[in-house]
């Protein structure tokens, strides 16, 4: 591939500005795609992902900056030349007339054919190969109007493969696909990249981007917010700033890649909080509070406890003891010190301590009281502070194991009157 010969990246977008009328879609965007790599463009709706991809395809004229393919400025290339270097899989596909599937894939050969050429043996081979790779041979003779949305997406992927380009551009390739087809599609793209092609894709699903991409470019408000390997880029700060949401970035236990869970913005006054409790319930409390931006600490918990994992993912201080070791004096002292720094200590009512309560039937306890207007939290009886850590804090709030997310945030807001100085979140408000 020529990129290897010249050292130029397959796709190099530099300082890209695109405006539609008075509306600036993207400004100052840099994106690079090297051969053998899979770059994910992530970002909220309207961040400019599609605009960047259109600039790479040459279907939008930049107001500033350059787009180079293999080092050649795209505005000096004919549509044919662009079509031999970059193949695209579109986001939305309304096909007007009902071409057969095979015919649609054959259209991928257009940039390789002269005006009077028919399809030669190598074109037929490329089409067959592309259809096999995308798994669409089964319905080759069906009408494109008759196949399902997921199948149609794969037909368009096959068409892009038939184009035989070193680079693929995909706009939300999994947007209309079910989980199975989504991962199959992403796996296929990943395999193609591992075989030497390169791909750049706009991806909504952050976990999917983290799982399949070598690099992630976070676009927000028309500019590049972060750019790098997913594990480095997809942290809470970047997601909070880009998406204007409250994210908790954990780790997907099945893939080991970052898993982003976003909560709606609560705009709470930020506080210093200490959580006492173990297990998934305490983990949930830690995650939600950390996502909201509170400074959270945790302890004492056994090493490897779900709450400890959540606290570590959230970069929260945590006091741990070895499993089954019991709480020693030093750990208790350390935890009490963290609690003492906090405005409020939250004691999560672990289900282990309360087995007689219906085995955790959520609807009967927490949710009922939610409807009546009271958040149903007891701020006077810390009877579950078994280790005596919470009492070091100024205020103690008891939180039921199945506490509702909104009740939790409300309880924190009610319990304390000293908000801490808000952390700079890096969020740029849309104007």
């Amino acid at each position: 591939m020529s990129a290897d010969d010249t050292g130029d990246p397959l796709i190099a977008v530099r300082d890209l500005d695109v405006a539609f009328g008075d509306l600036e879609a993207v400004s100052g965007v840099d994106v690079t795609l090297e051969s053998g790599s899979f770059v994910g463009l992530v970002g909220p709706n309207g961040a400019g992902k599609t605009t960047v991809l259109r600039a790479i395809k040459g279907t939008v004229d930049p107001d500033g900056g350059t787009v180079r393919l293999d080092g050649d400025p795209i505005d000096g290339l004919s549509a044919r030349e662009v079509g031999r270097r970059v193949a695209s899989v579109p986001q939305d596909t309304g096909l007007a007339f009902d071409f057969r599937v095979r015919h649609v894939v054959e259209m991928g050969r257009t940039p390789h054919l002269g005006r009077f050429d028919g399809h030669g043996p190598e074109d037929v081979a490329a089409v067959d190969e592309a259809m096999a790779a995308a798994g669409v041979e089964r319905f080759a003779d069906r009408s494109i109007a008759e196949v399902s949305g997921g199948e149609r997406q794969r037909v368009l992927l096959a068409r892009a493969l038939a184009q035989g380009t070193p680079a693929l551009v995909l706009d939300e390739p999994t947007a209309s696909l079910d989980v199975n087809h989504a991962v199959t599609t992403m796996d296929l793209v990943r395999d193609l990249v591992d075989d030497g092609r390169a791909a750049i894709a706009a991806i909504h699903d952050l976990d999917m981007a983290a799982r399949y991409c070598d690099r992630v470019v976070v676009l927000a408000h028309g500019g590049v917010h972060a750019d790098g390997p997913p594990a480095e880029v997809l942290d809470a700060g970047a997601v909070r700033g880009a998406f204007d949401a409250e994210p908790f970035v954990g780790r997907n236990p099945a893939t080991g890649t970052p898993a982003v869970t976003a909560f709606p913005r609560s705009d709470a006054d930020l506080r210093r909080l200490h959580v006492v409790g173990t297990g998934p319930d305490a983990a949930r409390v830690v995650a939600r509070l950390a996502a909201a931006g509170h400074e959270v600490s945790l302890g004492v918990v056994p090493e490897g406890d779900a709450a400890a994992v959540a606290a570590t993912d959230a970069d929260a201080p945590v006091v741990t003891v070895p499993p089954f070791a019991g709480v020693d004096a030093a750990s208790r002292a350390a935890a009490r010190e963290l609690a003492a720094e906090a405005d409020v200590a939250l004691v999560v009512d672990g289900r282990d301590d309360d087995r007689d309560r219906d085995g955790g039937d959520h609807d009967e306890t927490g949710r009922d009281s939610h409807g009546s207007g009271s958040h149903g939290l007891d701020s006077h009886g810390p009877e579950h502070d078994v280790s005596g850590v919470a009492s070091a804090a100024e205020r103690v709030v008891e939180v039921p194991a199945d506490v509702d997310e909104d009740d939790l945030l409300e309880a924190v807001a009610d319990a304390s009157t000293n908000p801490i100085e808000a952390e700079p979140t890096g969020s740029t408000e849309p104007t």
Partner: protein
Amino acid sequence: MRVRRRAATWSAVLAAALAVVVVVSAGIGPVRIPPAEVLKVVLNAAVIPAGVELGTRGAGPLALPGIDLAYRSPFAFSVDDVHRRIVLLVRLPRILLAALVGFSLAAAGTVMQGFFRNPMADPSIIGVSSGAAVGAVAFIVFPTALSATLTLPLVGAVDLGLSYGAGVSLFAFVGALVAAFGVYAIATRHGRTPVATLLLAGVAVQTFLGAVISYLQLQAGESLRRIVAWLMGHLSGASWNEVAATALVVPPLFAVLLVYSRDLNVLLLGEEEAHGLGIEVERTKRVLLAASALITAAGVAFAGVIGFVGLIVPHMLRLLVGPDHRVLLPTAALAGGTFLVAADTAARSGAAELPVGVVTAAVGAPFFVYLLMSREVNEL
């Protein structure tokens, strides 16, 4: 390859159908002539180059030796001379003009439906028919002002030597092209012509030209009858001159459309996709628009506004051969010719001759309603 064979097979079938309809139609009329007799007349009229012969060209002192092609009629069936005259001088020009007009309207309609990705598109959508109508009607209303002489500075009066019929056709042709170019110019900004804007510009221009036509009709006085006849579409009084003029213009334009039929397929995926697949979208659109406008103008210049051929025939053929323009375009064009010959035969074989546009609309509209209620159009 498979596609080319399919296109060739279908085209052969439809060309044969056209030939049959032409022969049968030539036998129908006040004097009925059996198809076999028609065939003999046509074959007798056929000439083939049979060799060269030396001769002289020019006359008097400028006579030069030259080489002429010698033609020979390979057939000499005995036919009734009256039948021969009816077929060759009366019916065949009209039938062949109908075939050519139907051919060009259906070809342009097919291209426009693909171009606009809109099943309602037909050749008139970019204002061609309205422009032709304004040109023709203007000439019919003001024949003396617009024909005969043109006074140019320096040169003085130039006699354009336009006969009435040629004047109407020329003005219709020019009007069609001016209207199409106007629509294109209105819809084009910074070198791009969005299809949706083109569609709306076409509607606006057609509406405006409709007003002009109505006004001219009010001013028409005695010529109103001729205007109405022209506007309804007619093929009566066709001569070999008109056939020859149309036959010179239509095939090269059709060849251009045919060459671009693969690009038209790709354009159906959407313009951005087409660009991604290596189509120079704006240039291709310009070529398709220009060729369609010209071929339609050639069709309507002599025959007037004949509706529905360009709308219905492409739909019928799409049901039959599928949406691939490499097959659809030639077959729809041939079917358009066949359809118009048949419609015109029906128009002239009744007790009183009807304008052919009335027949095509009367047949075409119910068929279009059927299409609307069936799957074909609903899913587009």
